[in-house]
């Protein structure tokens, strides 16, 4: 492998239609990749949930479920981490301050809409989560999950 970071990273890109259900393709692809990288099952489950939420948000919120609009998922493999970026075409911009709230179940009991758990789950389950507005107007979330080597038998 090359020493140049850009060259060592292997990049996989998916372009998904904005229709609910297609998040599974991203979940399955990321899980297969993470398994090959040597992630533990528990981390792969966390990754599946986080990517599922990110893509679902992009489909439903960012692209307003317009199937003609694409959700782009970029998976970048580094020796010790997997970087996942999910972008939409920004028909509706994410309110960034709303990405930092921690929902409470007792509040949800009082509300008609009992949702709002997705972004919080992503933050809880991934090592790094960062939301940005892409220059082109879309929403983008970048998540990183670190590969934890087993403490014994380090090579």
């Amino acid at each position: 492998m090359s020493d140049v970071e850009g060259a060592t990273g292997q990049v996989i890109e998916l372009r998904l239609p904005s229709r609910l259900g297609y998040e599974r393709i991203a979940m399955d692809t990321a899980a297969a990749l993470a398994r090959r990288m040597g992630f533990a099952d528990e981390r792969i489950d966390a990754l599946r949930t986080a990517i599922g939420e990110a893509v679902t948000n992009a489909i439903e919120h960012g692209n307003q479920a317009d199937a003609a609009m694409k959700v782009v998922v970029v998976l970048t493999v580094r020796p010790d981490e997997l970087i996942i970026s999910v972008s939409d075409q920004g028909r509706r911009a994410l309110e960034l301050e709303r990405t930092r709230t921690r929902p409470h179940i007792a509040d949800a009991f009082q509300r008609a809409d009992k949702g709002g758990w997705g972004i919080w789950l992503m933050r809880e389950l991934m090592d790094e989560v960062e939301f940005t507005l892409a220059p082109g107007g879309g929403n983008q979330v970048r998540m990183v999950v670190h590969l934890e080597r087993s403490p014994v038998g380090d090579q």
Partner: protein
Amino acid sequence: MLEDELTVNIRHRDGVAIIDLIGDVTTFAEEKINGAYRQVTARGDRFILLNFRQNDYINSAGIAILIGIVTEVNQNGQKLAVSGLSPHFQKIFRMVGLAQYAEIYQTEEDALSAFKRLGAVE
């Protein structure tokens, strides 16, 4: 192809209404889960078990549906438990706080034993 169907099945055992959720618990599941809950409630069931199948896909929309069920269970004075969740979803149920309102059991049998102690009878 990708809008995976959820199969919901209602059974009764030892005074407990068991709602089997076979498949994915996402936004597509709302009608079926709420319908099953309404059905057992109309029948007067007080003890309800949501029996999941390991390794299915439950997302935040599915969690919102389950919070809706918990809200009604509390209002109606019923008791709710869950079984069959994979370790990952057990963890998520604890994180979200669902586990405070619906006791988590590994298996249907464990849940039925617990309901028996609470007074569920044939």
